């Protein structure tokens, strides 16, 4: 199969996947007990107000009609109106999305970078104290709850040592240095505009949340890298490379890791969903103004339409990332690429 036909079939496969996801979210929110509109108000609401409220959100229509509006809306990029203020949910999502992307990106970098590095180290020193230590580290970080690790970091680095801020994305007192919005990622925008103070400030705010989330996720990568490296290091072609006198670095990274990396790549795709779940907790712990805090806020207000919109948005995001990872996989493996 050529790479192109692989990509086409993989993209086509994503469409029913997303359709299924959209339908499931829709159904689940409809079978949850309680009338969302009724829950929105205090007791004894005027039936006319209630009817008007329903009409505004389209909740007075029949279920199939609602479903149709919902689907067509999403394909236009319209995630519906919030029950709270009737503002388009899309605006909220777009506004807060970059914050979550920035957090997710740096966390993933830390998780994969640290995880792969320690995993390789562990496999090279198989069965030694280093190996045991790294494995223990992996299990412990994997098992710690996100918010707990976040709070410990806040306690040590913010309150005790006073090195880093406890939360938020930027210092409100330094509004003048606030990065101009280009991509919405503060660290990148500030670099693009040459705003060094803005860069350092946004980085300082980013360190604790992304370190928390990154450490939690890196355990999986340590274990996965270690297992796959142990397997590849024993392969004939690795020994053959050593027998040709290639340097240790080339053998470890160019031969063993290069072949062990494909499963790690798959894991990055799979972990993305867990990353978003972790982001919700991390964002809450660090008061990070991303999609996670938005979702939690909406849940607090029983804002059904906004919850539906955000969950669908997360779902589509995960599908697209796994599509991208699968294509990357095919690109990197010459046996699939052909």
């Amino acid at each position, binding site marked *: 199969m050529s790479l192109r036909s692989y990509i086409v079939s993989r993209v086509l496969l994503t469409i029913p996947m997303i359709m299924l996801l959209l339908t499931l979210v829709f159904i689940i929110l409809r079978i949850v007990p309680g009338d969302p509109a009724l829950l929105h108000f205090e007791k004894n609401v005027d039936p006319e107000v209630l009817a008007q409220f329903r009409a505004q959100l389209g909740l007075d229509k029949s279920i199939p009609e609602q479903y149709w509006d919902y689907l067509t809306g999403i394909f236009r990029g319209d995630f519906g109106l919030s029950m709270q203020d009737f503002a388009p949910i899309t605006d909220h999502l777009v506004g807060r999305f970059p914050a979550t992307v920035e957090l997710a990106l740096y966390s993933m970098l830390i998780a994969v970078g640290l995880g792969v590095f320690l995993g390789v180290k562990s496999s090279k020193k198989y069965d030694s104290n280093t190996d045991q230590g790294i494995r223990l580290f992996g299990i412990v970080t994997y098992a710690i709850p996100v918010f707990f690790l976040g709070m410990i970091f806040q306690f040590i680095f913010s309150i005790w040592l006073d090195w880093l801020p406890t939360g938020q994305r930027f210092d409100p007192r330094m509004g003048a240095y606030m990065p101009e919005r280009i991509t919405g990622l503060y660290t990148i925008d500030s670099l693009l505009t040459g705003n060094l103070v803005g860069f350092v400030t946004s980085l300082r705010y980013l360190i604790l949340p992304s370190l928390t989330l990154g450490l939690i996720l890196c355990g999986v990568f340590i274990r996965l890298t270690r297992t796959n490296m142990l397997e590849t290091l024993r392969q*004939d072609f690795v020994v*053959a*490379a*050593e027998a040709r*006198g*290639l*340097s240790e670095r080339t053998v470890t990274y*160019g031969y063993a890791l290069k*072949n062990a990396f494909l499963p790690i790549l798959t894991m990055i795709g799979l972990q993305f969903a867990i990353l978003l779940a972790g982001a919700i907790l991390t964002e809450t712990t660090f008061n990070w103004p991303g999609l996670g805090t938005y979702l939690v806020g909406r849940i607090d207000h029983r804002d059904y339409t906004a919850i539906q919109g955000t969950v669908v948005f997360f779902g589509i995001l995960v599908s697209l990332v796994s599509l991208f990872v699968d294509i990357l996989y095919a690109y990197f493996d*010459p046996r699939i690429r052909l």
Partner: protein
Amino acid sequence: MTDLLRIENLVVEYATRRGTARALDKASIILEENKTLGLAGESGCGKSTLGRAIMRLVPYPGKIIEGEIFLNLDQPVSVKTEDIPMGEVNLMNLDEDQMRALRGRMIAYIFQDPMTSLNPMLTIGDHFIQIMQAHDPEIEDEAALDRAKEILDGLGILPERVTDYPHQFSGGMRQRVMIGLGLALRPRLLISDEPTTSLDVIVEAQILEQMAELKDKFNLTMILITHNLGVLAQTADDIAIIYAGRIMEHASTDALFGNPQHPYTKALLEAVPDVSKPEKKLTWIPGAPPDLMDFIPGCMYNPRCPHAMDICRTTVPTLIKSKSGGKVACWLYEEE
């Protein structure tokens, strides 16, 4: 003739959870320049371990416990830490960087399974570029590729296939690529570990013929590890028979086939099927090779040997000169 390789009393042990297995026990071999030495023995007897030990690449958890490996270098080899001078050098005294400089450059190793010996993520050309640049950082990619094409052409593979990946080649072609990689830097010693076991007989014959041609062309000294005595009869000058980690007999091919000394060698030759005598029944050696974890006092072969005497069960025989002109480790003989 000078000796290219001399191994003295090499001991290799594998430390496992069950205990320590002695894979090689005081193995000594001598290999003259431009000759082919065959290492023969049953599966698990230590012949591959011996080949790997020469590269000092014994697989984990194996370890060289003691012994000397002398390699005669016809030219100095430059290393970033400390250059290796010309002449006889004890590989056991070299550091890791020095060993790495010798691997691929002076000693080449060809593995049993060509299907798994090439990196599936790299093109054939990349493999050549890497080995050349590992030993000569100055060489450019282009020059290395040109050289690779030349080598492949010489082995009967279309030069333009350097850009192909290993999975696009057949087993025989991959083994030729492995041989090409092995010979890319004109090494002195080529160790081939059952190079044709996983190939069919026709390809096996082609590869062996090609190796013999290359040996003459490049003045190679070869170690051929195999359990196929028929292959050795055609290709080897000398043969060492290994049993349970010990050298049982070490003689010229003619002497070994014409006048085998050790009871084990005799039994092995007896078990080789003969196509010219189809009526002859297949024979085998009763019993099984010992578990290397078990301690067997005396000669390792004594439990299976029809001539075993009391001394065989108590004292290890040493390698002594035999009547056939070779060496044998057996109490049936006395030093000539």
